[in-house]
């Protein structure tokens, strides 16, 4: 499938309650070391309840400049969280459904934009 289709898809929990939209997909480079670079495995999805226009990622980095833009954008992404691949039950065009009792993790990355 194409990542662009997944981004912006509504996310529901197992009871069908809407949690937000897919704002981003998080990958980890821990795959096949035979290639030039390790394979990229889907680790989980970043879900944002208010806006999925998350390209600036202020909610994930420690950036606070330029004030007040950074704070404003961070506020727009308040409440966003990460769900791991293991907690995803269904991926479809209309909806991503999570498993019962999924864990919401903090979307934070470390200061260099990495975790």
């Amino acid at each position, binding site marked *: 499938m194409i990542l662009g289709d*997944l981004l912006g898809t509504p996310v529901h929990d197992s009871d069908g309650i809407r949690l937000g939209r897919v704002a981003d997909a998080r990958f980890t480079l821990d795959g096949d070391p035979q290639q030039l670079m390790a394979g990229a495995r889907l680790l989980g999805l970043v879900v944002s309840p208010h806006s999925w226009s998350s390209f600036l990622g202020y909610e994930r980095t420690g950036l606070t400049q330029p004030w007040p833009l950074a704070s404003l954008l961070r506020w727009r992404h308040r409440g966003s969280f990460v769900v791991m691949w293991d907690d995803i039950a269904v991926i479809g065009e209309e909806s991503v459904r999570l498993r019962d009792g999924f864990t919401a993790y903090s979307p934070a990355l470390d200061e260099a934009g990495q975790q």
Partner: protein
Amino acid sequence: MKTYRPLAPVPPIAGRILDAQLHLLDRQVLDNDGVPVTTVDDVELSAPEEETVIAPGTPAPIITALLTGPVLGTRIFGGRPPSSRLVRIPWKDVADVGVVVRLGVSGENLESGWVERWIRDKIIARIPGGRHDPR
């Protein structure tokens, strides 16, 4: 205003982390000589197109290819080109992802470079001085 409880951090992972929007999509792609080839217009995953119920324990999808070409238009205006029309750069050709994506192969043989090659061979190289080195 609703307050949000602090969330636990993601469990530590061995490999490097890439958030697609932040670190991969729309980045410039350079070939092994540092010549720009294209941008990362989209990314293809090893997951089926249609609605899929995922059995517990299913291995996570991986990135199979970077996509370019017509997929940019559909990403902006909506829709999706048929799978046969996708222009792919296989993930195995990617050497590094930083503020640019570096390939480990020459751009000369990539499918994504045909427009550039066509314009070069049919127009620019035919104008006198088209191959002149400005330095």
